[in-house]
């Protein structure tokens, strides 16, 4: 089977204008079909978004600005009190912590695959790390709850007792278990393959000449990486990190299973308890009344907004990488 030459790949070629009328009619129908479907999807999603905003409005109106400062969640009580402060805090803290754990490991493994390992070994390591991405989040939650949490109690106790003077490890009640730290470790496992895969692509984009130039100057492998690969890849890595952040922000089920629920705002990651926007929606939607549903939808929109900003940021940063790379070459 002969391979297709990529002579002029991509690009849109237009058919000649003087084609038979039957062809023109068929083209018109097909064009209409594709355009129609696309516009329909566009319209449908816009309608859904507007609809969601409409559904979220009663709760936002009722709570006012307190929606962003209130920590408790009692939307259907006679005197409703509800707000996303604790939820957003938990979401952000667990995601940032997950990134702090996962990004160094992911970038290091990506560097290993592209720079240090033999090609065969590198390819297989890449495959295996990608398998981490295929594991469903409910399995991560189940594994986190029954395998990781019991085994992390000892480590958390050590941290609390020996490093307890640092505010984030401060845990005077000495109770350990389903804490934000445990949930963040599980999230880190889920974020790791995304960051690693994108980092691998970013490192592969670095032109070979740059590496060879460094090696010719007598640099060690690390110095080569440090001088030629990393500076070019900086914005790409940032893009990868933000993609990972998007994943962590939206994760629902693993957090719902691993994290015990409390509604407070503190930095003490060893204390059992916490909550995220997504886990709150998953657990509360069934019992929510009219105001409750509206409040949950509003919190979902807040989460969606945060995720949108993160991914939009990633895209603009990655686009800048593309321009920078070609500029340098």
């Amino acid at each position, binding site marked *: 089977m002969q391979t297709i030459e990529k002579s002029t790949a991509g690009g849109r070629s237009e058919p000649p204008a003087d084609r038979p009328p039957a062809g023109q009619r068929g083209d018109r129908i097909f064009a209409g079909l594709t355009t129609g479907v696309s516009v329909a999807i566009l319209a449908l999603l816009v309608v859904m978004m507007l609809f969601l905003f409409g559904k979220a409005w009663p709760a936002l109106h009722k709570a006012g600005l307190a929606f962003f400062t209130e920590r408790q969640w009692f939307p259907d009580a006679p005197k409703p009190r509800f707000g996303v402060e604790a939820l957003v805090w938990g979401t952000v803290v667990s995601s940032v912590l997950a990134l702090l754990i996962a990004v160094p490991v992911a970038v290091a493994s990506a560097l290993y695959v592209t720079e240090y390992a033999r090609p065969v070994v590198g390819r297989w390591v890449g495959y295996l790390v990608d398998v981490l991405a295929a594991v469903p989040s409910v399995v991560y939650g189940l594994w986190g709850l029954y395998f990781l949490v019991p085994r992390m109690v000892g480590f958390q106790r050590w941290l609390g007792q020996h490093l307890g003077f640092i505010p984030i490890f401060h845990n005077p009640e000495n109770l350990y278990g389903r804490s934000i730290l445990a949930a963040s470790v599980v999230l880190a496992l889920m974020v790791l393959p995304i960051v690693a895969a994108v980092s691998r692509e970013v490192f592969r984009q670095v032109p070979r000449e740059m590496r060879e130039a460094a090696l010719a100057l007598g640099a060690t492998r690390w110095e080569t990486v440090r001088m030629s690969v990393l500076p070019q890849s900086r914005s790409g890595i940032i893009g990868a990190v933000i993609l990972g952040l998007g994943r962590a922000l939206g994760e629902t089920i693993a957090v719902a299973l691993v994290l015990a629920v409390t509604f407070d705002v503190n930095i003490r990651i060893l204390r059992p308890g916490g909550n995220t926007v997504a886990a709150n929606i998953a657990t*509360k939607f069934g019992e929510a009344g009219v105001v409750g549903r509206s409040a949950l939808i509003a919190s979902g929109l807040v989460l969606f907004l945060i995720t949108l900003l993160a991914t939009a940021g990633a895209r603009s940063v990655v686009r800048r990488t593309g321009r920078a790379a070609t500029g340098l070459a």
Partner: protein
Amino acid sequence: MKRSFPLMCASALAVALVAGGCGTDNNTSTPSSQATTPGAATVPSAGASDKATLSGAGSTFVATIASEWIKQYKSAAPGVTVNYTAVGSGAGIQQLTSKTVDFGGSDAPLNADQAAATGGAGNVVQVPWIAGGVAVEYNLSSVKNLKLSPATVAGIFAGKITKWDDAAIKADNAGTSLPSTGIQVAFRSDSSGTTQVFTDYLRAAAPDVWTYGPSSKDWPSGTPGTGSKGSDGVTAAVKQAEGSIGYSEVSYPKQAGLGTALIKNKGGQFVAPTAAGVSAALTGATVNPDLTLKLNYLPDDPAAYPISTTTYLMYYKSSGDVNKDAAIKHFAAWVLTDGQKLAEGLDYAPMPQSILSKAMSTVGT
């Protein structure tokens, strides 16, 4: 693509086979632990529908016996498939109001607002269908038969008592050595009838320690501990960490192998959450004309378990589907007669006969 085509066909075939139906709903291979005893009033199966599907949702309190009822009911009405999802009393009421389920289970009756949301108080049939005890479950490997007085329980759950060797707990358990581990409290994170009953009890029995109010299905904020979803979530949380304490319907800790505390009642006796204790407590309850019960958390009976409650079945009088209406009526009647016999084996208490006959006439058989 040619080589993978037979593979794809094979997998499609496998999928079709599975979908085609080599599965079964028949899970009665394990012999049931309770055989129906002859003699007492039985609902004739001739009244059952030929084919109907009933879906219900609600209280986790009743979930254990509800599963048993559903299992046994299959023999009384083979054509009817009943399903009950335990999502909490609050969610059950919500689902019923939105008409996404056919019947709901709740540990507390509908209040005025909720009744109005269902279209008026007459629209929904509400009957108490079983009673049970809310157990205070704990995880302490060294202590069997923990005794707790109401003030101590309130103190633990309010966060005033934080260690197991606190003086108050020691006073309740003279002669037992208690470890100095910290107490991890587990409460319900979801809207729960069990929470409502438990907090109502604490407010009634230890009002100077438990100052949170008013009566609500949501656990109050400002207390220590972590929330979990459902009675089984709380039980799992208690089981997971040594030194934990929580509250849930008694079958859950029993199943999980956790200890349940003996609670001091008004008479000064430390009583376990058994069927006898619950029945004794029920005798002190006031029955309202609409068949809701006002529970007395300070019962005089010395054998009474104070944290007892009934739980209610709710369904629409007419749902628009005649077949469904008949099916649910038959199911309700079966639960109120044959179903009560299964109670004691699962640590629930059957409803007193006086209430049962009134309930049967409400259901309309």
